[in-house]
């Protein structure tokens, strides 16, 4: 018998929304006694009590006092909090009480899909999850790292796992930022089996880290018979990371993008992070260069002033000019601004249209060489033009049947 008799998880208090607090105390005899206080008692009290009984049966809890203080938590959150509280009492119990997979969550991703915006969501704050996808980011990141307090890491893993199952991401790429290794390796079994698309590796300083993550993922995939690809996005956040960036970018063919994180990087240099960003120009350019050398995407850091939309726009335009293809977002309202700023200009679209038309004309005529006016056009130029067209269509600047 373990020493710990009481396990709890979740949040309590008057300001808590869409979350709950669960406390389980194992008792001797007396059966299950549960007490529920819920903001939605008249509407879903019965469902919540049913869930408690089902979970007790599942984990074979026979005798316990269970307290639930609920401030409108959705079922996936209630279940995650219950399981986290229980696992504090029985950490060796490997059974998992999984919510059923949302039927809309089976879609896959591609290595070179567009990643203009990725929205960070703190891994222990369920109130943000359900509507995040409505704001149409290219990717949603459930963050287990910096946004989660050390004491909440366990709870967050169950919540993130249940979120991957239950919550509709509305087509956004499904990403999780794991903790720094070695802790991050333990995060993987909570997410890999649930159709995660991209794992973000924080504070990456070596190709070994990337390979360790890849190996662990492969093991979990094999155990769970998963064939879908899971890609990696290492984040460069230190001086050493910048130096090793090419090694990291080319460590595995699963690496789809290289991101830069400037808060930690400037701290590592011992300098202030400024809006002009002169102090990080070297790091950003190096990351772009390493990413392009490895033929993957370069993704810029987040813009942290959520009220300054003009500043954000300028920052994205600058990132674009350096060669970045994506930006981190910490508020949903940043997404549209980022997309607009990454969108091609009218001039760029016109040029791209000519190139793509010339290319298809040449292809139709069986010509190996494409030319536009007096200029010869090579393959990378065509590819970039096609990318511009794709962006233009996505931003509603061009009809998708423009060439018909």
């Amino acid at each position: 018998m373990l020493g710990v008799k009481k396990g709890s998880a979740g949040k309590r208090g008057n300001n808590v929304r869409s979350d709950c607090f669960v406390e389980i105390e194992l008792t001797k005899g007396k059966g299950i006694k549960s007490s529920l206080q819920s903001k939605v008692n008249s509407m879903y009290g019965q469902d919540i009590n049913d869930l408690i009984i089902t979970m007790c049966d599942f984990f074979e809890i026979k005798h316990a006092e269970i307290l639930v203080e609920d401030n409108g938590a959705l079922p996936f959150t209630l279940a995650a909090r219950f399981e986290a509280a229980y696992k504090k009492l029985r950490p060796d119990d490997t059974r998992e009480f999984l919510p059923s997979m949302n039927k809309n969550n089976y879609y896959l991703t591609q290595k070179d899909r567009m990643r203009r915006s990725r929205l960070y969501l703190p891994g222990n704050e369920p109130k943000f999850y359900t509507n995040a996808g409505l704001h149409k980011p290219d990717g949603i990141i459930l963050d287990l790292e910096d946004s989660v307090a050390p004491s909440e890491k366990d709870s967050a893993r169950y919540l993130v796992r249940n979120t991957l199952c239950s919550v509709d991401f509305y087509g956004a790429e499904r990403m999780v930022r794991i903790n720094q290794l070695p802790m991050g390796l333990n995060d993987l079994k909570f997410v890999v089996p649930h159709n995660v698309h991209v794992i973000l590796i924080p504070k990456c300083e070596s190709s070994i880290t990337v390979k360790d993550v890849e190996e662990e993922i492969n093991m979990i995939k094999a155990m769970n018979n998963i064939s879908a690809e899971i890609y990696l996005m290492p984040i460069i956040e230190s001086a050493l990371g910048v130096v090793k960036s090419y090694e990291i970018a080319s460590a595995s063919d699963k690496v789809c993008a290289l991101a830069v994180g400037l808060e930690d990087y400037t701290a590592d240099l011992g300098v202030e992070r400024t809006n002009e960003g002169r102090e990080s120009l070297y790091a950003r350019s190096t990351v772009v260069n390493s990413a392009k050398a490895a033929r993957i995407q370069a993704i810029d850091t987040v813009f942290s002033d959520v009220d300054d939309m003009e500043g954000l726009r300028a920052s994205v335009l600058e990132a674009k000019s350096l060669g970045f293809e994506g930006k981190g977002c910490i508020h949903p309202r940043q997404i549209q601004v980022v997309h607009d700023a990454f969108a091609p200009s009218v001039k760029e679209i016109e040029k791209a249209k000519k190139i793509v038309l010339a290319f298809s004309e040449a292809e139709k005529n069986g010509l190996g060489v494409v030319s536009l006016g007096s200029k010869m056009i090579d393959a990378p130029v065509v590819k970039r033009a096609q990318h511009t067209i794709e962006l233009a269509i996505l931003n509603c600047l061009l009809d998708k049947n423009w060439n018909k």
Partner: protein
Amino acid sequence: MKLIKNAAGRLVPSIISNQKQIPFKGVDKFKSKKRIIYTPIKTCAEYPADGNKVIKNLKDALKKAGLKDGMTISTHHHLRNGDQLTNVLFDTIHSMGIKNIRWFPSASFPCHSYLIRYLRDGTIHHIEGSMNGPIGKFTSEGKMKGVGVLRSHGGRYQSIQDGEVHIDIAVIAAPTADPFGNANGVQGKSACGGLGFALADSEYADKVIVVTDNLVPFPCVPWQIQGNHVDYVVHVDFLGDPSKIVSGTTEMTKSPDRLLIAEYIAKFMDEVGIVKDGFSYQAGAGGTNLAVILFLKEIMKKKGIKARFIRGGSTKYLVELMQEGLTDYILDGQTFDLEGVRSMRDNPNHVMTSPFTSYNYHGKGNFASMVDAAILGATEVDVNFNANVVSHSDGYLLHGIGGWQNCLYSKCTIIAVPSFRDRIPVILDEVTTLCGPGELIDVIVTERGIAINPKRKDLLNAVRNSSLPIRSIKEIQKEVYEICGGVPAKPNVNKKKVVAVVKWVDGTVLDSIYKVNV
């Protein structure tokens, strides 16, 4: 209590507080054959010829007014959550040993939960007005002695002029007044903007007491309330807490979901052709509503057009709109922030309106039906586009109606609601309390999509090729039920015990609110 089924299929009492009631007959179906009431003729000889009606304190004024057990006392809510006068008024009434007052406010606020003690001890018999927050909870739990009556702002004017509610004494808090009783709300330390909600009270009450904390020599200009209606004037040190009367500034919502709803609304209004030169709409002070103003502003600037008038609820955002030349007029029923008060004082195009001009259904027309679009909130809506604005899905009465019912008559009524709150679905099969019949509600906008009332084929046609997320209401409901974990259980209430009723704009009874089983 005998309950009868009205035209909306809702059970309502046939008698409330010994007064026979007319059940709701349908939208625009009931026509009263009565005449507007008269007040007794007064002569100038009964009043001081020098115009000085000042009485030394409120207690004396109430005595002179003939305060008795069982009377109806009215107050207005322009001081909002900063109102301290109403609490002092009932302290005074209590100290005089008076019982069983019918309190008839134009609305109540959280500050008035102080009055629960007087509901408990019988000083106040019941409330006809709004029962918000703690008073709503008190009422819902069946603790109020009489049955509450909820009316819209227009319905309140209608009930007074039609004689449904006879006000014995009106106590009008006035941020500035002169000894004759002329009063306004745009000057003085307690300035709150217009005093339109006190208009009917001043016109129809037997006795009218103006209470001010800024007594100026005659004339008090402008006279939003005319001294010719006023019996007594009382000068006090303060009416309330100015910081809670108007906020320093009203703040825009930061909620991404509300902003998304606001953006959808503005784009929708543009795509269906509402946003054109000379248009009008009804604004408000809720977070989503303020955000709509900003999104509309961008569209108007881009198109180079302006509105003819915007009805408020005025705030700095509306004032800025007028200052930038994007609307000719603000027609303002109540002023929410200091900028609004300043603008109403200084700008002749920022005009005070009253429930008579804006909302009264028993008049020869009103402004509310003339606006091109109104954007309103709701606690719940249902798949038939009915909406509830007074109670929550657990059955508790927590809000008043305000001008909400009256605004439903706009040319395009848009309800802005989140599709769920925490775990509470907002689109139900049937609303808990019916406040707005679905036939008057044209569009429901949520963060998950825009549902258009199938009756509005013109709107459906206008957005046929739109990139906006136009969906059926049932489809959004289904998605939200899946998110929340199924269909919510109905509130646990005692269907035999009515604690309050909701009146329709014509004075008929639209729905009942029942005692919650605790």
